[in-house]
């Protein structure tokens, strides 16, 4: 088919055409080239105005036609980039060219308009598509920025929530210390059965509240990335049987049988026993809570790279569709559960996070009505026998020592806490000297010797940390023997412990004060005094 076109029609299809002879001397020029290179005239050699990007070989018009070689040329001033092919006509070699779409980004700078593009080829559409693509990329970038901002804001809000929880937990702990401390004192002083049973309810309620506070504090630590784990040797069998025993009476009250199958994991391990106990205790507490009849079992076995602890019950079970939900914070499989069974819904979430921090995981198998089995896998190492023996030797408790003559100074600004401390220590025959802040503690220490100082951390005038640092500095200067200083604080986040140690504290006892722990700390201190290994 031979097609005849008028010059105008042809130019609409190829606004950038060129006609040359075999020697590449220009004969005619299309309007879009003239627009940008008005001085290019018939008779000029093509290479006066253009260089060939393709072909790479020296261009020969006859060969370009014969081989249908793609042609790409650029103007020597760098503005025009044209591409197309060459056909032979009786008037010469016709270069059918368009503005190269690859250069679309610079088209608007150059001043190309719709007229410069062929009606027949798609170079204009390609240019438009490339421009729109740029738009979309910019938009995507903007969206990414917006998401980033939203993420940062959400994280800041989450941090604020963690801080709030932490501050609130701390604020609630102080009065709770008064309640629990005084209750413990009163229980020891009372023999009336009715009063004792009422006080026991106060104590249990206080401890329940404390456990909720501890959950909240753990949650905020985990979320803030401040949950540090210990790596110390401990006896896994003791840990698991201890956790198991703690629930026997509760299980018996419900008529449940408790089973224990943990022989396979006897031995010493390196890890964080407190947190492992917390996980197991949590699973046991849930198991008993949700089991009305039958049994609850703790079993454990060694697996490759660690061990596996399972808590299995014959309770109400969980719909598999709810598995992912039960590990969520403040979530229980059914919101009505909270009303029926109580609990914050934080326990499993914390247990899962703790297991994760220990390089492990918790899985659940269950069916409604058929009980549940929660399995904890922990990447935890067992110690060899020789190391274990040495540990046992270290564990030996100091011999009981009389506290009667102990000279104890306490720095505590809160009057309730002062009274609690005083009463607890009185029951052990210790007469306490109390000062109101760190400054007064330093003064009291300067004026006479003490066997031990109990130091609150947050106090007006001078904090416990500052006071301790001052005392340690003075001791170093005057070569006075070191006085044991025990921190009494609700701030017992693991990351704060090194700070206390660095300040020169000999030990830490958490508030609300548990009588047993406080007395153990005092006994340890005295044992150290007597063996001459003062802190």
């Amino acid at each position, binding site marked *: 088919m031979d097609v005849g076109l008028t010059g105008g029609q042809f130019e609409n299809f190829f606004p950038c055409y060129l006609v040359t002879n075999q020697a590449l001397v220009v004969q005619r020029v299309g309007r879009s080239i003239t627009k940008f290179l008005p001085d290019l005239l018939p008779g000029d050699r093509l290479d006066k105005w253009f260089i060939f990007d393709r072909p790479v070989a020296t261009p020969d018009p006859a060969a370009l036609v014969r081989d249908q070689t793609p042609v790409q040329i650029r103007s020597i001033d760098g503005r025009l980039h044209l591409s197309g092919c060459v056909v032979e006509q009786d008037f010469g070699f016709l270069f059918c060219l368009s503005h190269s779409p690859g250069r679309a980004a610079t088209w608007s700078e150059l*001043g190309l308009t*719709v007229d410069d593009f062929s009606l027949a080829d798609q170079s204009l559409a390609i240019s438009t598509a490339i421009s729109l693509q740029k738009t979309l990329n910019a938009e995507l970038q903007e969206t990414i920025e917006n998401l980033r901002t939203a993420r940062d804001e959400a994280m800041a809000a989450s941090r604020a929530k963690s801080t709030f929880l932490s501050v609130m937990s701390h604020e609630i702990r102080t009065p709770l210390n008064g309640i629990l401390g005084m209750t413990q004192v009163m229980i020891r002083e009372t023999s009336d059965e009715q009063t004792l049973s009422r006080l026991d309810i106060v104590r249990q309620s206080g401890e329940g509240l404390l456990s909720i506070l501890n959950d909240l504090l753990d949650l905020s630590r985990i979320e803030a990335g401040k949950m540090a784990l210990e790596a110390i040797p401990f006896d896994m069998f003791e840990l698991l049987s201890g956790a198991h025993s703690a629930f026997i009476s509760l299980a018996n009250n419900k008529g449940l049988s408790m089973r224990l199958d943990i022989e396979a994991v006897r031995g010493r391990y390196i890890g964080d026993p407190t947190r492992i106990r917390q996980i197991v205790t949590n699973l046991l507490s849930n198991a008993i809570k949700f089991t009305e009849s039958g049994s609850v079992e703790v079993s454990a076995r060694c697996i490759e790279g660690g061990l596996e602890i399972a808590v299995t019950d014959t309770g109400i079970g969980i719909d598999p569709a709810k598995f992912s939900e039960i590990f969520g914070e403040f979530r229980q499989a059914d919101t009505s559960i909270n009303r029926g069974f109580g609990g914050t819904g934080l326990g499993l979430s914390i247990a899962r996070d703790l297991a994760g921090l220990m390089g492990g995981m918790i899985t659940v198998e269950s069916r409604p009505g058929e009980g549940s089995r929660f399995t904890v896998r922990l990447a935890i190492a067992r110690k060899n026998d020789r190391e274990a023996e040495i540990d046992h030797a270290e564990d030996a408790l100091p011999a009981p020592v009389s506290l009667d003559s102990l000279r104890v100074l306490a720095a505590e600004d809160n009057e309730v806490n002062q009274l609690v401390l005083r009463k607890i220590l009185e029951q052990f025959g210790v007469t306490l000297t109390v000062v109101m802040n760190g400054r007064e503690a330093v003064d009291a220490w300067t004026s006479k010797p003490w066997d031990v100082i109990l130091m609150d951390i947050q106090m007006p005038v001078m904090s416990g940390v500052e006071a301790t640092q001052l005392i340690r500095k003075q001791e170093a200067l005057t070569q006075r023997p070191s006085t044991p200083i025990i921190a009494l604080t609700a701030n017992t986040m693991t990351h704060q412990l090194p700070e206390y140690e660095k300040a020169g504290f000999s030990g830490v006892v958490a508030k609300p004060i548990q009588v047993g722990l406080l007395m153990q700390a005092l006994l340890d201190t005295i044992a150290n005094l007597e063996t001459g290994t003062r802190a």
Partner: protein
Amino acid sequence: MFGMIHRSARTMVLEQFGPAAWDQILASAKLDDGDFVSAQSYPDEVTFRLITSAADTAGLTVEQTLQAFGHHWVKTINTGVYANVMAILGVSIVDALTNLDRMHASIQIAMPDAQLPQFVIVSQDERAIKLAYYSKRDGLESFVLGLLEGLLNRYNQPGSVAFSGTDGEARLFTITLAPPLAA
């Protein structure tokens, strides 16, 4: 319509009335998400709900809102990322109107699912250009009117635009140039 239209509408509302107004418009249009994606197609019904709600919020008629949006749309495409596409319209209002249809045709190839309008110059002299507008959508004449006024502004061409009725499928606009173009 494609999200680029909605995004432009959002910019207009944010510029003129602030973020609270935009939230109110989204709420009264029952749209959850104001983050439109330029290259995504949204049902026309969404667009009209947005426009109607914007009109309510601004205390304007839908026609007035569409016309104002036409002006804003020219601003949108004349600046920033669309400038490269806009540049190919040429350097004068006559160039722009002549090339308007080919520009839309080229966008149609780049975005095959877009339902873009067609523009044809019916007649033209030094005083006035009569432009036929074809669209598969109804009710957007005020938008086209605002858009053509926006183009007059864009090319610094004094003049006015009037809707001058229909002719079959064509909806006709007369762009009067004052003073007339130099011969």
